[in-house]
């Protein structure tokens, strides 16, 4: 089977790659582009470890074909820190010890980023429902939720 040529933008940079039609976006990110921050926990949309933002929508990159990325903008965990400076979400995850093994963390950070992009002042309930598609086996979620609430508060401060 011939490969498909795909042009896309990843974390602001134009990127081109060749993909087998059956390859997922996650396969290409990890195995072709060496962006291994996005993880494969389940491959079936259940765990959220592969979460990325495509044209401003949070999606599971394991449930999207790489070919579908043609002409789209993809944001992954690798683009979250800016010039060596951690994003407030990353900083707060560290401060609140919102990670242990870290496998779920890139997905949780991208999901949290997508939330704060559309809702800078979420309630705790809103955070919990928004993140329901991100599974974590270690933290018990409370510290994650606190870190997201705290990062949201800091980002609101930065805006004023």
């Amino acid at each position: 089977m011939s490969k498909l040529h795909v042009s896309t933008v990843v974390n602001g940079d134009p990127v081109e790659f060749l993909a087998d039609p059956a390859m997922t976006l996650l396969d290409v990110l990890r195995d072709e582009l060496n962006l291994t921050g996005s993880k494969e926990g389940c491959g079936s949309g259940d765990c959220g470890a592969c979460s990325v933002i495509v044209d401003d929508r949070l999606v599971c990159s394991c449930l999207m074909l790489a070919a579908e990325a043609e002409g789209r903008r993809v944001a992954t965990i690798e683009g979250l820190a800016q010039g060596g400076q951690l994003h407030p979400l990353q900083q707060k995850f560290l401060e609140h010890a919102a990670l242990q093994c870290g496998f779920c963390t890139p997905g949780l950070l991208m999901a949290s980023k997508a939330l704060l992009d559309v809702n800078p002042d979420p309630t705790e309930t809103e955070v919990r429902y928004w993140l329901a598609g991100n599974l974590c086996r270690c933290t018990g979620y409370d510290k994650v939720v606190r870190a997201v609430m705290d990062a949201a508060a800091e980002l609101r401060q930065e805006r004023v």
Partner: protein
Amino acid sequence: MSQLQYLAPSTIDDAVLALAASGARALSGGTDLLVQLRAGRMAPGAIVDLKRIEGISGIRQEGGAFIIGAATSGAVIGEHAALCRAWPGVVEAVNLIGSTQVQGRATMAGNLCNASPAADSVPALIAARAVCIIAGPGGRREAPVEDIVTAPGRTSLAQGEFIVAFRLPPRPARSSDAYLRLIPRTEMDIAVAGAGVSLTLDAEGRVSEAYVALGAVAPTALLVADAGAALVGGRLDEDSLSRLDAAARAACRPISDKRGTIEYRTKIAGVLARRAAQAAYQRASDQA
């Protein structure tokens, strides 16, 4: 090595041609299709991505009706204020599908055509009397949502046919709808049973028209005419609610599985029908 082809036609005619080939499968959000593909449960020859067809995504109003493009994601549906006001039950059913991530991609067309008995948007769409606008080798046709799924995993769509859009009919004053499902937790699970109710009230607050549909209690979602009729003429007094409950239970032909027994599903279907009717009634009354 996979023999899979990926096609992304930009017109309806090209999509019909691509889908008419044997082994071709439509792709919308991929939240069912890619799971099945990866699990090796199907091996299509070609995947025909419908999302590049012009006009296939988005919501527009046409003489009081809403036309929802087949590739419109759940997230986009939930953000449409006018649609949420007119059809809160349809919107809540669509928004129950999966996580935030799944909502970013999942569509009503995929939910319907995957043909799971437990698909959440389907009872709400049937109760809403939604119509599918279908393109195919023979041109355009329309069919009510309840005519699409014929058995688990099977639809009445012919080779080459696909859903282009859904139409929700114009809404009289004092109309509303609701959808409720039971799952063992609050997120990320498959319905044990689901119930959609859409109704219209007269100026005195009596139900003048009502439709009730049930999910996950039979091989396909059911439109239960007796259950709707039980509500008409009343104000959701206990008498009409218990007739609704009985009619809903009588229509059930469920299976027993890990999510629930036949007895449990049947009882719950009646309870959910009652509660969905009450929610729809309240919403319709609040408009007065």
